[in-house]
């Protein structure tokens, strides 16, 4: 601790009269919203994290409880005295992440947690989560926990990459930044997040060592401009050199597995001068919050990875510069603020060919928001279902879900977005308040759908609608009582940005549930209606002929039979069929369906986001219904029904003659 504190003490702490006197004794806390995010996707995107606030807001959590768990190493040893972070999405009332410590048997416990959706991050130096390839694939969606959960995590020693950096004359280079950037996961699928990027310095012998690496493939470059702060080391004088002695296009990927060390990853600098890109910022550059930093990202076009970030701050925030940029194609995106206050520029495509580029212009525009309310419908008064539903639920988790345990994702319903879009979260997760109010900020223009991951198997999403006139008023009133939203909202109004447009849900919401966001559109009054009485089904797929082999990579679709549901994406469901040929679908609306198994679409290895449900596309819906009707695997789901023994054949055998 002492050495760490000492070593990070800035030189200028004692440098001048002005600094020491003027800053006499001042300390302050920075709100989470002011912390620039090093990852390409912000750690907590989406929901209204504009201002921290006392939790004395209108809505108290539904309940309090405990999340406990255990950290083990892959060789069966408990990981003791290790820290575990617990963070919440914190839609309206952000909380600081909690940190816990494991005991001698590797156990940890977070008590007195308000109900909500939590993510858990073990922090064991040198170790990473052990994930099966299937889990790795599912990583694209974050895992959340709720109170009462017991979380057992297995960790394994991470990989290491080490080597020596020499200059063009063969001399070792001391204190040079080396960036180790994961470009593919262990399954070989492209990644587009900086979460697994490491930056290390070469030592006095020119040796670097990056350790604790997630399995996967990495690009190793020497002399990178830092995405991360490292205050004392001069920036490089030349364009980065990639392992072994290449430009980016000629770089050799280095792959590591759990516990594996790749040594001899030596880099010889190419001594190639980089170029300077500079330009100006205009448009919605002013923030309504205290810290007005704008960051400009330099995105390598072909990979979509951020190569460098320029932080523009201070009193004169009108221009930006990148130094030592290698020849190549890039996209520049400027971004500022979080939540409802966020703004960004459209990507600007630049080709660097042997010369500096000046006079680039980035115009920031306000980003969009979607707000509304998730609510639980009162159970129908007359018919049968409710008691049976309760009984069945008792077998597993007796505690009913709470609205604030729902994770809502605002998913961009468009895979063909232009270049440079990756700096903005494409699929921000949000958590509603206990009263169901939710707000997504930082939305780039595009078509969105709200996906709700429900905390209770008895629930299903019945509809996504626009609030009626009364509904709009009600939700507006609820929002104005929310201390978190108030300050930013009023400032927003006083800033009177012409780019900001308030839009009623009815004008943005289309009949199939998608929401159109234009530049700075602020959509209010979206109602996500959740009903009880959901059904669940599980089963297995058998080969169509006895003794035959099952086709690999199958996907199961649930297709509504009622013609009036044919265009309601909420009534469609789909899931991968697991390697053991089993499948499970939950949170299903009662009704009449067809089941359809068919080969899963071939995944795009360069696509880093979860596949979009087929049913979001009108043509695909029609196609699914045609095929499902032909396959004639019919099923009727009663309210609360739990069917575990479905057997399906693929390819389908001839339907029974009627």
């Amino acid at each position, binding site marked *: 601790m002492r050495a760490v504190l000492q070593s990070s003490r800035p030189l200028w702490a004692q440098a001048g009269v002005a600094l020491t006197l003027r800053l006499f004794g001042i300390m302050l806390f920075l709100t989470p919203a002011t912390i620039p995010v090093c990852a390409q996707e912000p750690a907590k995107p989406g929901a209204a994290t504009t201002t921290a606030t*006392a939790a004395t807001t209108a809505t108290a959590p539904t309940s309090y409880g405990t999340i406990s768990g255990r950290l083990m190493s892959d060789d069966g040893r408990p990981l003791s*005295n290790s820290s575990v972070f617990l963070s919440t999405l914190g839609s309206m009332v952000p909380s600081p992440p909690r940190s816990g410590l494991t005991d001698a048997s590797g156990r940890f416990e977070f008590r007195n947690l308000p109900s909500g959706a939590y993510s858990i991050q073990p922090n064991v130096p040198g170790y990473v989560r052990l994930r099966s390839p299937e889990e790795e694939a599912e990583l694209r969606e974050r895992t959340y926990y709720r109170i009462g959960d017991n979380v057992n995590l297995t960790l394994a020693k991470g990989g290491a990459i080490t080597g020596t950096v020499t200059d063009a004359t063969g001399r070792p280079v001391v204190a040079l930044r080396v960036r180790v950037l994961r470009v593919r996961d262990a399954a070989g699928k492209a990644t587009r997040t900086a979460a697994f990027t490491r930056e290390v310095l070469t030592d006095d012998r020119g040796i670097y060592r990056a350790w604790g690496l997630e399995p996967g493939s990495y690009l190793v470059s020497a002399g990178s401009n830092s995405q991360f702060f490292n205050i004392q080391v001069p920036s490089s004088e030349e364009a980065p050199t990639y392992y072994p002695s290449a430009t980016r296009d000629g770089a050799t990927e280095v792959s590591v597995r759990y516990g594996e060390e790749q040594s001899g990853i030596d880099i010889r600098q190419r001594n190639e001068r980089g170029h300077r890109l500079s330009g100006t910022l205009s448009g919605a550059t002013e923030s309504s919050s205290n810290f007005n930093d704008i960051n400009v990202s330099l995105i390598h076009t072909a990979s979509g990875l951020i190569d460098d970030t320029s932080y523009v701050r201070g009193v004169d925030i009108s221009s930006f510069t990148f130094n030592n940029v290698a020849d190549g194609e890039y996209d520049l995106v400027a971004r500022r603020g979080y939540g409802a206050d966020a703004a960004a520029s459209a990507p600007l495509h630049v080709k660097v060919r042997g010369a500096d580029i000046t006079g680039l212009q980035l115009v920031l525009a306000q980003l969009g928001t979607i707000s509304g309310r998730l609510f639980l419908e009162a159970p129908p008064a007359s018919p049968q279902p409710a008691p049976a539903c309760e009984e069945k639920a008792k077998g597993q988790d007796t505690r009913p879900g709470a609205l604030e345990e729902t994770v809502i994702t605002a998913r961009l319903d468009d895979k063909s977005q232009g270049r440079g879009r990756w700096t903005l979260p494409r699929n921000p997760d949000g958590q509603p308040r206990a009263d169901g109010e939710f707000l997504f900020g930082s939305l780039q223009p595009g078509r969105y759908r709200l996906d709700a991951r429900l905390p209770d198997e008895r629930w299903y999403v019945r509809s996504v609608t626009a609030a009626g006139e009364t509904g709009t008023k009600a939700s507006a009133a609820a929002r104005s009582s929310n201390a978190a939203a108030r300050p930013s909202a009023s400032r927003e109004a006083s800033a009177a940005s012409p780019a900001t447009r308030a839009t009623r849900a009815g004008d943005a919401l289309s009949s199939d549930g998608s929401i159109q966001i234009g530049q700075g559109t602020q959509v209010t009054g979206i109602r996500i209606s959740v009903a009880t009485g959901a059904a669940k089904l599980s089963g297995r797929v058998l080969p169509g002929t006895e003794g035959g082999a099952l086709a690999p990579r199958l996907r199961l679709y649930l297709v509504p039979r009622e013609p009036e549901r044919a265009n309601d994406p909420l009534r469609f469901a789909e899931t991968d069929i697991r390697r053991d040929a089993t499948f499970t679908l939950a949170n299903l609306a009662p009704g009449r369906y067809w089941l359809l198994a068919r080969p899963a679409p071939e995944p795009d290895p360069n696509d880093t986001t979860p596949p979009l449900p087929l049913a979001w596309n009108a043509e695909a819906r029609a196609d699914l219904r045609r095929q499902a009707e032909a396959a004639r695997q019919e099923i009727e789901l009663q309210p609360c029904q739990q069917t575990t023994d479905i057997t399906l054949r693929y390819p389908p055998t001839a339907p029974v003659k009627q």
Partner: protein
Amino acid sequence: MFSLPRRTLIMTLLLLLSLLAVSPDPSNSTALAQTTSRAGTGSITGRVTSGTEGLSGILVELLSSQAQFGPSRAPSVARARTDEDGRYRLSNIAAGRYFIRAFAPTYVITSDMAARGMMRTVILDEGDAIEGINFTMMRGAVITGRVTDSEGRPVIGEPIQLSRVNDDQPSQQVPSFNLYANDRFSTDDRGIYRIYGLAAGHYRVSVGTAKGADDGRVALHGRRPYVRTYYPSVTESREAKIVELSEGSEATGINITVGSLGEAFKADGRIVDAESGQPLAGMRFTYGNTDREQRYLAGFGPGDRSNQKGEFHIENLSPGYYAAFLIPEAESEWYGEPAVFEVVDADVSGIEIKVRRGASLSGVAVIEGTADRSVRDKLRRLQLFINMEQQGLEVPARAAPRIAPDGSFHQTGLPAGRARFNLWPPNSGGLSLLRIERNGVTLANGLELAAGEQVTGLRLVLVYGTAVVRGRVVTESGAVPEGMRLSVTAQRADEPEAQRRYGGQGVEADERGRFLIDGLATGEYIMTLHAFPGMVPGVAKPQPMRRPLAPVVQRVTVTNGTQTEVTFTLNTQAEEAGGER
């Protein structure tokens, strides 16, 4: 060096760290383009040597001195590498004030302020050809070894502590020129550490935390610390084997096997309304180490919120003094009295953070003497800080209200005490704080706030300055003595006496005695020269601080848009009279 109170230094440090923590590398920042776009005609030459030998290939960098960056984050303005003979040349430099450094991380710089953790200033006039900005260095030494646990497994990510054992002083921290690589101070995935660029001398190497209150540390996001273990795996500092490093040497195999984990205890408490005694749920709080006198905080974590019963629980506290306190949140009206407690050898309970409605301040910031819209626009981007001088333990405040486009500001949740106002960055774009008025009356010494007082109608009067003072320091014998450190402050003559030590602008003079202050507004200033006898160049050993010379004061009147020349004559005899060797 100034004899600032320790807590002030620590708090300042914490602020700076918090700013730095959110400040990625600024090397691509805007000022670079601005500075270099007006290429000048000045040049700087010098030599980098070790012993009698010139060092080749060393990077020498000229850095912007703009206050908004701070020296350690300043963008590079010009750079050069030394030739075979150790010589460098920086050219095409515009007139101005800069910092200069030689980046040679495997060496120990012995020639300049860097050895004291300070930047070296250079003032350049248009067309100046400054010669002899030399750097002398000694080859640094290396300590390397491995840290393992009792079962022989590597201890990963464990911070290494080096303390220097000195003949003059019993124990001293490692000099701060080893700043640039934090990770060098921790073990890697094999348990191996390697620390280089160390000055020759005697060192004690240890990991873990000592038992006893003065060394109590909050395990911020961290693990429970090990009981402090010195090389070679002993827990008593007197049994530690001293590692002797000569210039350029490498001490290998400095291995440590850690002992047991230190003791850890729990603390329970509540957050209550001071008036009614009712528990308050959902209040955000944190805790940190404090000293025996309970005057300052030495670190704190992100904290947590009280539960539905207003309770909080803190775990993994090693013995020591602590303070639990409320984290003031934006727009919150609450203020919490810090609760100080000591952990000795058992769990602690019954801690209470008492919360009451805080005082508030509101008003408007105005710029005097200009109607220029571009100047007014700068106002919005300034950060106002309100610093509360309090009785007892000072805890962090979130008193950083935003200045709205119309100049208004509002801050709630303040404790009782004396409020002082500061702008960040200081003297940004020529704007500085001239005076503070309450109901038309200028406040002579900050604003005294009573508990819960709601003050409105404040006026922060800023001025816009474009005047420049160019100065030089001479002595009776002519040149400034080698190693002498000079700093000059400029304070408005019309500023109230009591306020003066909180305001003003200060700069370092370069070793030729030149200094440059810009962004001053029209008016009369009291300029004060502080001179500190420096270190003896070429000695890597830490040198004791010496008392400063008698300050030299003179009054100077400046006018916006003009440049004023000032000369200070320093009486070096005062060094003999008041100094101590």
